């Protein structure tokens, strides 16, 4: 437990992503199994101890300390877990031996609502203030120390010198404390097999197309749809639908999960059929319609009927157990076109190719596209294999105007007037390099409109639940939420650390589906300077 609470403590005081990375790498290398597996799970929020609630911890505390003194302390410290860790009375007499992380997790997991009152104090009595802080954060699942699942995976890859794409791929079939993953990476055991589990495979991503034309003999053009990117996986008799960040969203779209019943891994755009029909393909509603369905735990019959979802497929990674990823795009496309005949047309269609003679004609077609469901054009190299991540030269995205960039929320401040109770002014940033190589976020702009009232409520809640620091009226968030920011133009500006200033930035869309490390980089924003 001591090593884990020291890690938590140091992560709290380390601001830079690179510094955090180093700490986790070092911890993973020097800590034995299964403690390090539990630690990774704790950092990434993969542990849940439903019996332990913040309210019951507060009650245990106020049985031991005058409630007024507790409240005054809580107000000053600003965090309940920390307050309790500091106020918890040292036990009288010799302290029972401090538990290891493995034992701590097992004690917490065994607690029931009824046993928390006797068991949790006994556990806290065995720890010092740092240990108590770590346990309470662990138990209530509120680490909030700026460690994303992605950062943990990058650290894991670095600690054991294995490719991060492999880590991403194998991670998904595993559960804490990830014994098979550590056996593979740290002890040289064979990689965990994914054949019988519907594993997520990391997506292939596109670079923005900037000021260059491509030869359509080498590249195929498709519409870029305004839905969310999904991966549909069937294995071992189960189908799962994964979002861009690898979250399992099958329960939100049960009709899609039910529509695939043979082993396959398919890549496509999740859309909703609705009133905004149109475009060459037809049938897709605007993003707003899709938004009605996102983030719901339970889906009503009415929802299913009013906003029926379908997937517009554009790639196939695996069909019938055969891994197609090494094949050129054109070969995969042929397999996909053959496959579509066997799929339920209500739930699946094919993202068509744009029949342009050359790049100039493609530009014309793109400029003429008025369908709300079309976000721009994708250009895919005809001979490209399906590779995880963003490889230069293989896939490009060519977004439609206005200028759009994906930024990460960094700071929020309360608004004025009727918004004075909401955190409604947002500062967002882009990466100053490769986030997996230790890049930092630099602020690039501020916006306080572009969202609906519903979205404002969501954002306010997000800010309050993800605060990692306060500076007077400003809250710093854990930098996990991505905004698509629309703006008119961008200019050099020496006064900002990023060297850039946007004109008329507004929140175009909240991208809950997008992980923060995939937000844009300063250099992409810089390339949009036109003056």
């Amino acid at each position: 437990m001591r090593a884990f609470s020291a890690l938590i403590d140091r992560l709290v005081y380390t601001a830079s992503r690179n510094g955090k990375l180093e700490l986790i790498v070092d911890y993973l290398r020097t800590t034995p199994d299964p403690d390090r597996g539990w630690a990774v799970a704790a950092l990434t929020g993969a542990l849940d101890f439903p019996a332990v609630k913040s309210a019951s911890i507060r009650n245990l505390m106020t049985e031991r300390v005058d409630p007024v003194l507790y409240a005054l302390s809580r107000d000053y410290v600003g965090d309940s877990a920390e307050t309790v860790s500091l106020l918890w009375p040292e036990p009288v007499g010799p302290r029972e031996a401090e538990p290891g992380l493995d034992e701590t997790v097992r004690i917490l997991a065994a607690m029931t609502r009824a046993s928390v009152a006797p068991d949790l104090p006994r556990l806290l009595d065995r720890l010092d203030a740092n240990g108590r802080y770590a346990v309470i954060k662990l138990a209530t699942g509120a680490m909030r120390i700026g460690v994303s699942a992605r950062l943990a995976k990058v650290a894991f890859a670095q600690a054991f010198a294995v490719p991060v794409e492999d880590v991403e791929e194998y991670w998904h079939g595993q559960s804490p404390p990830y014994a098979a993953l550590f056996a593979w990476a740290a002890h040289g055991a064979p990689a965990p097999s994914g054949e019988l589990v519907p594993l997520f495979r990391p997506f292939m991503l596109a670079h923005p197309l900037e000021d260059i034309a491509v030869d359509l003999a080498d590249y195929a053009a498709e519409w870029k749809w305004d839905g969310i990117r999904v991966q549909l996986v069937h294995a071992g008799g189960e189908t799962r639908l994964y979002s861009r960040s690898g979250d399992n969203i099958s329960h939100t779209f049960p009709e899609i999960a039910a529509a695939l019943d043979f082993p396959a891994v398919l890549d496509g755009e999740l859309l909703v059929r609705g009133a905004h029909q149109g475009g060459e393909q037809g049938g897709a509603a605007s993003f707003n319609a899709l938004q009605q369905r996102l983030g719901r735990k339970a889906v009503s019959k009415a929802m299913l009927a009013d906003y029926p979802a379908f997937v517009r497929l554009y790639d196939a990674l695996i069909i019938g157990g055969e891994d197609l990823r090494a094949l050129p795009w054109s070969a995969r496309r042929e397999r996909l076109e053959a496959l579509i005949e066997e799929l339920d047309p209500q739930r699946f269609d094919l993202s068509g190719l744009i029949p342009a003679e050359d790049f100039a004609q493609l530009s014309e077609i793109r400029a003429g596209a008025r369908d709300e469901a079309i976000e721009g054009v994708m250009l895919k190299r005809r001979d490209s294999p399906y590779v995880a991540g963003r490889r230069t030269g293989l896939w490009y995205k060519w977004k439609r105007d206005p200028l759009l960039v994906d930024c990460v929320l960094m700071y929020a401040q309360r608004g004025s007037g009727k918004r004075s109770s909401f955190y409604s002014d947002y500062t967002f940033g882009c990466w100053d390099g490769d986030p997996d190589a230790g890049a930092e976020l630099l602020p690039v702009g501020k916006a306080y409109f572009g969202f609906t009232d519903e979205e404002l409520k969501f954002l306010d809640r997000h800010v309050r639940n993800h605060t990692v620091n306060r500076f007077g009226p400003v809250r710093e968030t854990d930098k996990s939420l991505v905004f698509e920011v629309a703006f008119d133009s961008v200019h050099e500006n020496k006064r900002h650390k990023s060297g850039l200033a946007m004109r008329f930035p507004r929140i175009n869309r909240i991208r809950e589906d997008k992980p923060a490390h995939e937000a844009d980089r300063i250099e992409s924003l810089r390339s949009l300077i036109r003056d």
Partner: protein
Amino acid sequence: MMTASLSWIRAEPWGIHVVPADCWIDPARPVERALITHGHADHARGGHGETVATPETLAIMDLRYNTRDGAVAAHYGETMALGGGVSATWLPAGHVLGSAQILLEHVGERVVVTGDFKRRPDPTCAPFAVTPCDVLITEATFGLPVFLHPPVEEEVGKLLIARDANPDRCVLVGAYALGKAQRVIAELRRAGYHDPIWLHGALERMCRLYEELGVELGELRLVADARKDELRGAVVLCPPSALSDRWSRRLPDPLTAMASGWMRVRQRARQRGVELPLIISDHADWQELTQTIEDIDPAQTWVTHGREEALLRWCQLRQRQARALALVGYEDEDD
């Protein structure tokens, strides 16, 4: 113990007024005659007609404000008549070099003004003297039960471990110029660290004064005189304000530490961008504050400044009479 009537001592927002003698304790505005508990800027101000304080405090004030005129020295243990039938006795407070409690006696009533104080041993100053009284006028800078300062040895140990673990960096410790900086140096020496300790220029004069007044600090050097290479693996001290300013860029990849009682609370440390919080305080923590009230067992406790609400609550729970004085302008410089 008798209940004090105490019409002769009054708390005004800018200081404690000893009415029959017409003098003030730690006044925040210029007065004819001031009794000063210690040299921190929130307690010791220039511009008084007469300034009564310990010789060390007078030397510190002289260094800071050039207030030689009207200085009257009072030694620990000395009792002086203030006029109007009031006498004052000067007793060590254990806070910083020269810090004093003042025992006031008048018509058979005894009042102790602690100024800032702590109970823990400190190699740079004389220890706190427990003095029975009717009214205890105490500070409450760390008057919340969350504040428990760990043993200073543990915190100095953390500093030395961080230094050993980062041979290519330097450990930069933010410490207040009066008291904290010298205590950190003296504790490092006590822990067996005898390498030169490097100073920001703003700390030099006070360290020299401490040495002149008999506190040994070992070999001290100025960062301004260092080659960059010399600072790798070194301990560097600077005022807290310099931790994040441009000055620190000349140092080799500094690991930022801060020596302060506030470091007990994570949020406070993070606001300052501190990587290595060191909980080292020259004030009494919660345990020392409450222990002191129990040790002295006064009829009344008055609280000058700090988080008085919690201390008043603690007194209330134990049926002790207490009140807050709400003095203004304290608690800027020292923690």
